[in-house]
């Protein structure tokens, strides 16, 4: 099967899974024991049957579940995800506002975790079972075992309050608060407006949460790079290369690393989910107005149009990420296609 067919097949598969995702999200948000309608109406508004009825009609709450799902899906396809009960705004507007912040943060965290994961993995594999290997592995396992919410809290206390080298909270300092966003992506907007001071400030605000988020992913990548490097290094062609008298570093860099990257790529797709999930725990501590924070607030206030919107979007991003990884994988290593 060619790469094209493979990709098409994967996209079809993705669509199928996404339909499943919407059903799952819909089922969850409808098992809520409380009646979100009652809870979200004003104290006195509840006593007015007219208001109640209007609300019910507006949310389709008076229909059967399958019908409600179909209503939701047909609206979804038209880009309408309903109105958030809590914020009283269209969910799609909320998502548009919160998504770019999280995407920027996750991208930066990704870069950090890949850089550190690669370095640590290589060191660890080359110096297998030496002291430095144990040390690096201890660090990577610590990263994996770290409760992200706790690390966020502690690092904010340490780096902001005690050491004063990190900023307090939010995406920008108050001095730049008037800066109006076009795309929502601060990095893009600040560059296109030529405001490099804002770009700097945005990166400065992102670095601490990104590092916290990168922790676990970095650990996983280190582990994978290490074991796949060890695997590749034990193979015959490398022994040959070594026997030919090639420099050890050259061997690793040229031959081993490229091959070791393939499994790393797969694992990256999976650990990206951890990264996205981590935003739920970390963003609230840094008051970073992103999607993770939004998902959390919506879940705890049982704002179900918003819960559905947020979880579906996160699952979509995660699935697309994995699709990209798999297709890249297919390009690098044609053997995997079937």
């Amino acid at each position, binding site marked *: 099967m060619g790469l094209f067919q493979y990709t098409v097949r994967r996209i079809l598969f993705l669509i199928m899974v996404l339909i499943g995702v919407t059903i799952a999200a819909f089922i969850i948000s409808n098992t809520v024991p409380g009646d979100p309608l009652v809870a979200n109406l004003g104290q006195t508004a509840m006593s007015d049957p007219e208001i109640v009825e209007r609300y019910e009609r507006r949310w389709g709450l008076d229909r059967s579940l399958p019908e409600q799902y179909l209503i939701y899906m047909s609206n979804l396809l038209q880009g309408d995800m309903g109105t958030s009960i809590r914020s009283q705004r269209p969910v799609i507007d909320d998502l548009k506002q919160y998504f770019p912040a999280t995407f920027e943060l996750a991208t930066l965290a990704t870069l950090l975790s890949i850089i550190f994961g690669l370095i640590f993995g290589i060191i660890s594999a080359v110096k297998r079972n030496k002291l430095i290997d144990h040390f690096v592995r201890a660090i990577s*396992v610590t990263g994996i075992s770290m409760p992200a919410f706790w690390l966020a809290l502690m690092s904010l206390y340490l780096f902001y309050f005690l050491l004063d080298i990190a900023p307090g909270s939010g995406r920008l300092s108050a001095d730049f608060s008037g800066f109006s966003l076009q795309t929502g992506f601060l990095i893009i907007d600040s560059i296109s407006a030529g405001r490099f001071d804002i770009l700097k400030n945005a990166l400065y605000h992102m670095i601490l949460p990104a590092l916290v988020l990168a922790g676990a992913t970095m650990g996983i990548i280190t582990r994978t790079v290490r074991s796949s490097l060890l695997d590749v290094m034990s193979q015959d062609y490398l022994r040959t290369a070594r026997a030919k008298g090639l420099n050890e570093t050259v061997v690793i860099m040229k031959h081993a690393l490229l091959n070791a990257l393939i499994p790393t790529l797969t694992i990256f797709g999976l650990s990206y989910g951890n990264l996205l999930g981590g935003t739920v725990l970390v963003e609230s501590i840094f008051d970073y107005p992103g999607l993770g924070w939004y998902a959390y607030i919506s879940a705890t206030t049982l704002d179900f149009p918003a819960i559905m919107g947020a979880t579906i979007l996160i699952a979509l991003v995660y699935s697309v990420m994995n699709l990209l990884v798999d297709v890249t994988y297919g390009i690098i290593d044609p053997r995997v296609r079937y």
Partner: protein
Amino acid sequence: MKQSGIYKLAKKNPLAVIGIVTCVIWLIAAIIAPLIAPYGPFTQDLPMRYDSPSTEHIMGTDHLGRDVFSRVIWGARISIPAGVIVIVISTLFGGLYGAIAGYMGKLTDEAMMRVADVVMSFPPIILAMAIAAALGPSIMNAVFAIVIVWWPRYARMMRGLVLSTKEAEYVSSAVALGEKKAYVLLKTIVPNCVAPLLVMASVDLGNAILIFSGLGFLGLGVAPPAAEWGVMVAQGVAIFQYWWISFFPGVAILTVAMGFNFIGDAFRDMLDPRLRRQI
């Protein structure tokens, strides 16, 4: 002889030893919590609120004057069993699910695995959070939510094992000899999958405890006044100028998760045949 064995292991894989020691310490602490905790986990002492670590309260006190050290110790009785239950149920359910899918094959397999795919297309904590929120906060609901997130990975592994064994020659020959296929599969698969299951479970145990405490932190886990580590970290967030309220429970989560991860890593290294080869 035995001592030298431990010594050898310690030298070859010191991390595994650290992991085992950590986990054993925590398990003992959990079992004898009432004996070693100097105060009750719920004993309030309002005049002593927010007391910093001292000889009297070695980890300080929280917003109600409760001893943080005692609560951390008692907390082991919630988080560790919760993690174990999550893994046991996920393994059993996921394993069975995957085995059935693999055995039935064809459309059933396809349909069953698509369900697993859907679950796996959510980042774990997101789905667990949504489910826990919908069900309402309680230990059992949190455990249930994490199980729902967790079982597909076991199902996938089990299905793979069943598929690869199903076509194996000795299975078909046994079937030809008149034995029931299901029985044969069971007999050959069970011993085959113990090792990988153990590795997966020990690595996942740390993760399950992390997610469980994450739910607690988000307020979707255990109800106060229960001493749950995630809840305890959350209680310190509002006032982390008194760092000890959050710091110590967080260390507890970290060390337990780390302990299980070290053990899991060592298992993996031991069982991964590729890595056993020396370079």
